[in-house]
């Protein structure tokens, strides 16, 4: 009997200097994580506009994760501090609107944390998969 497993769509924004390198390291070390995760490279986590996150949900993403350098380690000194504030407020707002709070996450992953990257993605995919499809913040037209 074949069961089609529900596979969430995950968009991961990774900063070029830490998290994208961390993802590369996960690859170098062959640390597996689900293929549902697709990474978009941005120079810094602070490049991620809340509009991109909403866009992802509109287009059918089930979860969006933003990865950046650890606070204090930003290649641009302060970028991830702004990310932290923006996302704190945005996520709090999404939660306030009743959007499942587990669908969004910010995680700090350094270039050395290949294992953390893989573990984070494994956990995030699992969490989102448990929620099921994103229904509250979707644009049905996209699924035509």
């Amino acid at each position, binding site marked *: 009997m074949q069961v089609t497993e529900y596979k969430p769509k995950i968009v991961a924004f990774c900063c070029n200097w830490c998290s994208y390198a961390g993802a590369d390291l996960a690859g170098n070390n062959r640390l597996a994580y689900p293929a549902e995760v697709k990474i978009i490279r941005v120079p810094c986590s602070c490049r991620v506009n809340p509009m991109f996150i909403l866009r992802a949900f509109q287009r059918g993403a089930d979860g969006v994760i933003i990865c950046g350098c650890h606070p204090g380690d930003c290649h641009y000194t302060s970028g991830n501090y702004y990310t932290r504030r923006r996302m704190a407020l945005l996520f709090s707002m999404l939660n306030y609107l009743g959007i499942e709070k587990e669908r969004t996450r910010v995680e700090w992953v350094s270039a050395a944390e290949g294992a953390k990257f893989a573990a984070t993605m494994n956990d995030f995919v699992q969490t989102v998969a448990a929620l099921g499809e994103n229904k509250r913040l979707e644009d049905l*037209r996209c699924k035509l």
Partner: protein
Amino acid sequence: MRKIAVAKLDALFAAMAKTHTVYLPADGADGRAQYTRWEAGVVYSTALNTVRSAKDFFFPQTENLMDFKMEGKSIELIDTRDEGEDFIVFGVRACDVRSFDVLDRVFLAEPVDSYYAARRAHGVIFSMACTRPAETCFCKTFGIDAAEPAGDVACYIDADTLYLDAKTEKGEAVLAALGLEDSDTAAVDAQKALIRERLDALPLSGLSAAAFGGDKLDEYFERPEWKTLSETCLGCGTCTFVCPTCQCYDIRDFKTNTGVRRYRCWDSCMYSEFTKMSAGQPRLTQLERFRQRFMHKLVYYPANNDGIFGCVGCGRCLSRCPISMNIVKVMKTLGGKNV
């Protein structure tokens, strides 16, 4: 003329719903009346006006026109129109009923807009006389009689009885199928008299549109008052979106995951980017856009449509404009003593 007890309204709507989808004003979560699809439990609201007008039923805020699928160099066009369903809009006020005439003259003029026409063909209008017109009402200005609303069936309601008067064959057919009790016209006649008395007592009852019309372009176009009138206009679309006769639209494409959906949505001539195109912008300032809206209702529309005005005096813009600017103020400012 037929009648039914107000207590039996639910049964009436249920009977209508067997053959038609029924929409009627019902009080929403915010306490204001909105057209709602009738189902058991929905209670008819006698509130004077819904926030949104009844034009939505024929000219909805957004509607899909067609889909395209594209692959390589080829395009496939998919006609997504469906047959549509028969529906009844119950409780439409006289002003909104007139607005359908106004819209008809746009959408049913050649070439006929098939989306609108299909809805119009499927819709049956049950109008409702206004026993308690508000201070913002001025339908009389445009020759509309709230005591004698048009539509397929004209309705009158008092404390315990709803009277229904078929005005068209379509209306008569629907009424006939409902098997209602016949009624004499005495109660309705009395109500009409009361309504007319009340209409005459309204603060705007003296407002006259005689100073306006299709031949008045030169008289009003260059008037300096446009500046002061439009100066604090925010350029939002509230007036146009609550207006039962505003019919400007935009056609837009939405990229779906597999193709393109072309849809139509309301647009507003008050919006700064309404007429912006790559070739330029003919109405540059809010003054021009503001003037366009009111000239259209009071001059351009009558010029093209046998003198019928593009306003029906429903008063929605009077109560909804964020800065309380509205067509009455425009008419009084421009028309002076003649208004």
